[in-house]
């Protein structure tokens, strides 16, 4: 496990998101779908982000500013420095035939690096608005759908090997529709390396830590359920929830704003 203080070398707006680029230092980019814990200046806990871009010497993260933590990261300026730990967890299995990337909202975050490593396979990306969909420009060979059209509406009859990241409901539906998809899940997470037991998801009736078992898992692992106090939050609110980074289910997004508990990976 490596942790270094990295310097911001760029921060560009991509629709409502910020693409925060850090000098790589001695950190490796890892496998697409792995994640990094980024210090959120002024907050007690770091936030998990999957790697978005990996140009030589850099690590790029797509950030949706939703709460104090993600906002402070999205507002980092060139020359600022933050501690970064990673890469962590298990990424996508790249040994697949006919890959198809399926993403929703901030769930496109791991796809630029993933697409690069897979040779620009086709992608289907769903967004809330055309403004959010500006992030699709980061992913080559992408078909874009906007609410109320869902990515699952746009799936081909024979989708091939699906690699997906996005809102939990989207991933749950994909797990039903597609055999053996690779799903980048998300869960509230304090540490990212198995210490806190916060990021549990349910698999075969057991709670497992997503940071160690995932964040990329096969179908059959169920996303971290929302607090029972929060059930009943309109599903629609969940669509477009940040998956590449923080507050997953927007219920939680508001809950903690990203304040934490809603920090997720994907």
């Amino acid at each position: 496990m490596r942790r270094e203080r990295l310097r911001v070398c760029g921060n560009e707006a991509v629709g409502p998101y910020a693409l925060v680029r850090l000098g790589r230092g001695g950190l490796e980019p890892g496998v697409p779908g792995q994640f990094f814990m980024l210090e959120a200046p002024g907050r007690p806990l770091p936030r998990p982000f999957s790697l978005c871009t990996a140009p030589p010497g850099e690590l790029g993260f797509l950030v949706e500013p939703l709460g104090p933590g993600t906002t402070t990261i999205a507002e980092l300026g060139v020359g600022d420095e933050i501690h970064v730990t990673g890469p962590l967890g298990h990424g996508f299995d790249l040994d697949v035939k006919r890959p198809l990337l399926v993403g929703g909202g901030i769930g496109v975050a791991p796809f630029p690096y993933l697409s690069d490593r897979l040779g620009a396979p086709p992608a289907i990306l769903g967004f809330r608005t055309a403004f959010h969909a500006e992030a699709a420009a980061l992913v080559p060979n992408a078909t874009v759908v906007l609410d109320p059209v869902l990515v699952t509406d746009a799936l081909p009859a024979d989708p091939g090997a699906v690699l997906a990241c996005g809102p939990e409901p989207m991933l749950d539906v994909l797990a039903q529709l597609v055999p053996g998809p690779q799903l980048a899940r998300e869960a509230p997470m304090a540490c990212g390396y198995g210490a806190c037991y916060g990021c549990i998801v349910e698999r075969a009736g057991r709670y497992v830590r997503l940071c160690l078992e995932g964040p990329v898992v096969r179908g059959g692992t169920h996303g971290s359920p929302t607090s029972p106090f929060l059930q009943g939050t309109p599903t629609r609110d969940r669509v477009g929830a940040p998956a590449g980074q923080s507050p997953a289910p927007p219920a939680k997004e508001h809950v903690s704003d990203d304040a934490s508990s809603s920090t997720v990976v994907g």
Partner: protein
Amino acid sequence: MSVPILNASGCLDALAAPEVARSLDVFVTKTITPEPREGNPPVRIAETEHGMLNSIGLQGPGIDAFVADHLPRLGTLGVDLWVSVGGFAAPDFTRCCALLDDEPTVAAIELNLSCPNVEEAPETAAELVSAARAATKKPLYAKLSPAQWDVAASARAVVDAGADGLSLVNTIRGLVLDALTLRPRLARAIGGYSGEPIRPIALACVHACATAVDVPIVGMGGVAAGLHALELVAAGASAVALGTILFSDPLAPGRVREELRSEAAARGFENALAARSIAVAGFEKSLQIASNSTA
């Protein structure tokens, strides 16, 4: 003589992050219960402005699987090992401690008498310590809650019951509401509050107990830097544990150890332990915590 740096129980998995465990002087396991436990449903953690709440609920393999599967692997780490034990009644503590008593890799047992996220045992802390004491010769550290009016009285009671040391403090119950919905952010609403805001509470508990009993104290609660550790030592701790800081900084043990050394030196102390109890009037003690070599 240096001040040993431990992890707070439940804040590190040595099998998932062995290099972090090896950077400690003692690794303390997550609390082990007699039976396997899935723990509490999510959402389990929530950040606050300056700390966090957790409601994990003692997720773990149970003592039998722990002894059979986890303990042999923990024994190869090359770091002193304490096992944290918990339960819901005195026989739970008896059973766990009896099973650990013959394990040479276990240097000490910490009794979690104060988990804020599960039902409390009906017995008093002292009765639970007595039950554990009867089952093992291992050094016993009683981990107490800061949420009591007279923690010193509790310290006296558990020491009288056979505790060899104290771990101070556990988390303290807290509640965080979502600003928009005004609903609890944790599935079980209440969680254990930890991090920098509880540091003065931990200091007060260590200070109170250091004047009340003559046993080693592992101080913990909001330690994020060497100065925080030195303050706990000044209040009477002879070892310091790191909790929440490990989540944001896995390299904290080495950093805090180095900072502790330099903070002590900057104040003219030969070593950090020389500052022990100077915040406690008229009190002199120098007791070492248990290690494999002394167990």
